Structure formats: C-alpha cells, structure tokens
C-alpha cells in the first residue's frame, strides 16, 4: 500500500476510512479538528458515501454516532477534551446501552493548554464510564488502533475511547496503510431494549457492564498494546503511558532502556503487568501525559512501606503541563543540555485579530457604549473574539465554557448588575448559547446578547457554522421581540451609527440581541482564492 505523510489526526481519519467507517460526527476544537477535515477532503469518503457532518455540538455529534452504531454501522465521533464535558450525558449512558456497530469516540486532550481553558485528562472519563481506552504512542499506532478499536467495540458491544494529546494530533509522520475493509450492512440491534434505559433495564445493563470488566482487563493485558520490556538495571522500574514512551526512548537512541519498562497504551490498567514490574522493582517512575491517573492508583490512599512511587505527585515530574524530552530526562536523573538562553530583546507575540477583522471594529463600538459604566460588565465566550480580553480592547471579563456569555449575563443581571452584556460567536451560539437565550427571554432579563457573526467557526480554521443564514430566525423563534433584534455591519465607517444602535439596546430594560455581522477575513480570502482557481 502507499505511504502518506499524515498528522496524527489525519492518520486516525484515514484509519477509520480504511476500517469501514460509515459515519463521522464532530464539533471543531483544537487539537481534534483535522480528523473531520481530512474525511471531508478524502476522495474515498465521497466515493464510499461516508456520512460526515460538523454537528451543532459534541452532544448532538455523540448521539448521532450512537444512532449510526444502533443501525449496525461503524461510527466515529471526535472532539476536544472539554467537548466531552458537553457530551458527557450521552457518553456515560452509551457505556450502559452498549453499541451495535463499532463506535469509536476520539477525544483530543490539550496538556499545557495551547488552545484550551483547562488540561483535563479524558482517561478519567474512560475510567468513569468503565469502557476500554486506547492511548496510542505514535501516529502509525493510532492508525492501527482504529481497526482494533472498531473490532473490540463490536466484540464487546461497548463504545471505545481513543485518547490523544496535542503532539500526537498535530505531528506528522509516514503512515503505512492496511487493506480497506467493507462497511457494515444495515442491521438493527438484536436486542433493542438495551437502549431503553428505564430503571429496570438500566440496572440489568449496568450489571452487565460490571461483569464485562474482567474481559476488559484481559484485553488490556493480552491484546498487545501494553508491553512489558525487561531491563537489566532493576533499581528503577518505569511505567510510560502513550506519548511519554517516546520521550523516554528519546534518551536511548540504541532502542534499549537499561531499566524495565511497562508501556501502557490501553486501559483499564492491566494489574498483572503492573505486578510484573513491582515484583522486580521497588522504585517506580510513572510518566504520563496529563493528570497523575496511574500514579494515583499505584499510590492508593496509604503509602506502601517498601515501595517508592515517583511522578507528578512526588515532584519528580512537574504537576502540570505537557511532558517533553527534557522533563523526562530530568526525572530519570540524566544530564540535561540546553542551548543559549532567549535574549531579552525577544518580545512576546501573543495571538491577535487578523488585519481587517470585523471583531476589532465590534469591540471598538462596545467599548465606546460601555465607557460611562466602567469596566467588567461584558461577558465573553470561546472563539477568536475571546481576544477582546487583551489590550488594546480589554473589553471582556470572562471566558469559561461554550455558551456561558449568555447565561452569565443573565445571572449577573438577576443579581442587579446593570447593564449586563454577553458576547458570543455565531457558531458558539448554536453550539450552546440558544438554550441560554431562551432562559433570558422567558424571564424577560435586562441583558444584551451580542452575537459576533463572522459566518464561520473561525478559531479552528473556518469550518461551516450551524448558525449560517439562520441566526435571526432562531432568535425570533425563541421569542425575542423583533424590535430588539438588530443587525449591524462592523465597519469603521458605520462606527457612529453602530454606537447609537447598541446604546439603545443596552439601555433597554429587557432582553435584546445585537448581531454584528461581517464575514471572517480568512474565510473570505479563501473563498476568493478558490473562486479564482475555478
């Protein structure tokens, strides 16, 4: 088969296409976005009629994938780590219903928060739901694991999570493909009552899930992704999870580490393999990308008198942030090297609005209107416009989770803060802002919701926005008064009239929606380029 230079995300997408995928659902989020983008560009996806959709949010994506699995076909759903919080209700219950066609849930964590609000570790969700979790250590393994994930999902009748992190997602390497598998035929579940989680059924299904744990442990110990690698020096034993294994082996170019190593790429943690390591080593170093999940399990509540556990909790590895070769080398006590220090002349270069971005004109309008009221009356949300927190704008006072600008504006208004504003993007609004707006309307809350509509999901690279062409009808349908739904064009030449219009809505003692609408300059440029090529 041919070789391809693929990102980890792309390797997963190609793996899914080759493993008989019938449908993929996702909401864009760094570092997971490129999985869906790859499928949407792939010729074999259209040739084989693979369904692909940017869903309204991660929960609708997860449920659509479950529906496809119910009908017997292989489905994948992809999201960033915080997206799994949105989809958690569906996620936890799919472990109980089980699946029919293979269901692979790909979750991309972002340790060090390169592009995220937190660095939560999705392996805890996998443990919480009691389902198999795969954590590939390199891109080829990620590709191969997609085949295994679908196979084991169908064999056990359980969803399987693949947990990756930023460096896996966004690092490129040569991928060797396997022969393609055919898609599953449409085949409804033989026992459809499993999907009806009424208490009487749910108790039966939950006990079944508990009974399956033995088999999950057996898979983790025997299916080959977890490996015990003997070493000659037993003064230390190392447990290296996923990518951490690469940072470990970077220090041993010959390919052999002197200490025994347990390489973990599949969960639940295989206890017999851990015992194999602890039976020969009394000092154990745990290297894991993310939270100290395995280290905590190994420590338990009480210290083991004859065993020393090193890792993020002991201080051998920093408690937060992603791993790298230097951190791992330090934990191993190896000499470190570094080049010249960064000269003081180097200034920080944080992300900024693109030249000509409509958000920039919008924030100038908001700032002028809000000037008499003092700072901290404007809530923000997740997207490019979050940069309105930074100088020279300093407009926003929050960025918490998708949709929170709307409902925080409501709560603060309820507390008596006046005026109270929320700024939310078009895609973020249809993701999780609509329901919050319904709360405001029902309660006649005096708050102004500004929708920064750039006609795309901008921050993640310009994916289709579910809001496109339907924002006004959504707001009117939810019940906003037509007089208090206005659309403005954020251009410098309209600044004065925009200020007047926004001012009137801010002074209105009820819910209002102000849409600032101008296409993202990046998507506009891309559209112009592809038009030129035609």
């Amino acid at each position: 088969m041919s070789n391809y230079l693929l990102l980890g995300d792309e390797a997963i997408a190609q793996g899914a296409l080759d493993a008989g995928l019938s449908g993929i659902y996702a909401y864009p989020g760094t570092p997971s976005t490129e999985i869906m983008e790859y499928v949407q560009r792939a010729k074999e996806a259209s040739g084989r009629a693979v369904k692909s959709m940017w869903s309204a949010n991660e929960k609708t994506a997860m449920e659509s994938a479950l529906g496809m699995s119910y009908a017997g076909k292989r489905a994948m759903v992809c999201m960033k780590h915080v997206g799994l919080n949105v989809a958690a209700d569906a996620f936890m219950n799919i472990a109980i219903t089980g699946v029919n066609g293979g269901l692979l849930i790909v979750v991309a964590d972002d340790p060090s928060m390169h592009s995220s609000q937190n660095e939560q570790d999705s392996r805890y969700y996998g443990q919480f739901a009691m389902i198999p979790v795969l954590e590939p250590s390199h891109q080829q393994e990620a590709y191969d694991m997609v085949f295994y994930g679908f196979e084991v999902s169908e064999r056990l009748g359980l969803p399987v999570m693949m947990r990756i992190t930023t460096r896996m997602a966004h690092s490129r390497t040569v991928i060797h493909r396997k022969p393609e598998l055919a898609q599953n035929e449409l085949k409804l579940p033989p026992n459809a009552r499993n999907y009806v989680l009424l208490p009487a059924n749910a108790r039966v299904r939950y006990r079944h899930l508990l009974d399956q744990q033995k088999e999950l442990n057996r898979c983790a110990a025997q299916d080959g992704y977890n490996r015990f690698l003997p070493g000659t020096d037993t003064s230390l034993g190392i447990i290296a999870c996923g990518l951490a294994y690469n940072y470990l082996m970077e220090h041993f170019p010959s390919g052999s580490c002197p200490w025994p190593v347990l390489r973990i790429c599949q969960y639940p943690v295989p206890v017999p393999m851990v015992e194999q390591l602890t039976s020969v080593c009394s000092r154990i170093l745990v290297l894991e990308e993310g939270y100290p999940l395995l280290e905590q399990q190994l420590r338990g509540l009480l210290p083991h008198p004859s065993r020393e556990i090193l890792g993020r909790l002991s201080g051998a590895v920093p408690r937060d942030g992603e791993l790298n070769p230097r951190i791992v080398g330090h934990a191993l006590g190896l000499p470190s090297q570094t080049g010249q220090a960064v000269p003081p002349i180097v200034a920080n270069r944080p992300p900024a609005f693109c030249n000509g971005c409509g958000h920039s004109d919008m924030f100038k309008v908001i700032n002028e209107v809000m000037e008499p009221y003092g700072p901290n009356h404007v809530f923000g949300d997740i997207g490019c416009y979050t940069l309105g927190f930074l100088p020279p704008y300093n407009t926003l006072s929050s960025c918490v989770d998708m949709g929170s600008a709307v409902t925080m504006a409501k709560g603060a208004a309820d507390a008596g803060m006046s005026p109270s504003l929320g700024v939310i993007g078009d895609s973020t609004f249809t993701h999780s802002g609509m329901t919050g707006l319904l709360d405001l309307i029902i309660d006649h809350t005096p708050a102004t919701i500004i929708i920064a509509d750039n006609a795309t999901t901008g921050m993640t690279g310009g994916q289709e926005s579910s809001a496109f062409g339907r924002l006004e009808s959504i707001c009117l349908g939810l019940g906003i008064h037509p007089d208090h739904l206005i659309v403005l064009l954020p251009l410098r030449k309209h600044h004065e009239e925009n200020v007047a219009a926004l001012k009137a809505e801010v002074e209105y003692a009820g819910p209002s929606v102000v849409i600032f609408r101008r296409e993202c300059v990046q998507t506009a440029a891309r559209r112009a380029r592809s038009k030129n090529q035609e």
Partner: protein
Amino acid sequence: MKTDIILAGVGGQGILSIATVIGLAAMKKGLNIKQAEVHGMSQRGGAVQSNLRISSKPISSDLIPEGQADVILSVEPMEALRYLPFLRPEGWVVTNIRPFRNIPDYPDMEALIPQVEALPRVVTLDADQMASDSGNARSSNMVMLGAATPFLNLSPQEMEEAITEIFQRKGPGVVQTNLCAYRSGLEIARKRQEASR
C-alpha cells in the same frame, strides 16, 4: 544521518509550506520523519514553530530536545532568537531579516539585527526582496528553504524535485518562479558557508 530543524515564524507566514517541501524530499529518500506543527490559537498572528526531525533511524520524540536542533530556519528575525535554547552549540541559524511587526513593543531593528548577526553560525538574508527580484514576491519561503539547504543533509536536486512536484498543479510558471527563488537563497547560503570556513 539525523537533522533536527526548528522552523520559526508568525502565524499566517506559511512556515508549513517549507516543511511540506522538506518532508516530501525526505519521504522520497525513504528517511524517517516527524513534524510537530502548531495549530489553533497561535495561528492568529502569534509566534509559531514547527519541529521537523529527519533521520535514517527511527525517531522517538515528536519534539526536538533542547540543545539538539541542527538548524533554526526562521522567516522573521526576532523569531529566530526565540528558539536559541533548542539549538546545539554547532548549529546554524538561517533567518529572513524582514521584520513582521504586529506587536507594539517590537524591538528596534538597529538593536535586533546586530544581535542576530552576532550569532556564531548564521545566514541572514532579505528573502522578501530576493523573492521579488526573482519574479514572485510570494515565494520568499522558497528563498529561505534554499538558504537552509546546505545544512539539511538533503541535496538541492532532491529539494528541487520536491518543489516541482508540489507546485506542479499550479502550472509550469509557478514551478519556475519557485525554483528561481529557491536557487537565489541557495546561492547566498553557499557563499556564507564558504566565507565561514
């Protein structure tokens, strides 16, 4: 054979187009490659880098360890200095001297450029000017690639084949201007390398 390259620039400057050519040339030669990229928030005008590792042996880490990069290839002068902790003592810095000013506290050029030029092994060039001179202002990244080629353990012929393959679908004219830009960069680096011997 092993080459660890840090590509540096500002989000939007297209450093990944350089990585694409090097990656293709290395892949056609049957070498192992790992290329860690920055996607997401920093792409909006922030500092971005890509770790490109090429080796005849399997590569473990996606990230280049500190003090081990063979080359820093920067399309912007201040960004060239940001990754010095990653450069090994005998490593080379190849950088464009055309600044990308999108921050209020960008340093004075009179202070910045001498610091860049004082580095022990450095190739500096005005890639934007050279790209314009060779007929396409937008091919400055190919000028930079040319200037870095002597330090990458890949031959100019291998690079030119990769450039040709990548730009082929845009037409022979585009291939030619990119090759022309590439060769002008290569020329500068060879002269500088000879002078330092």
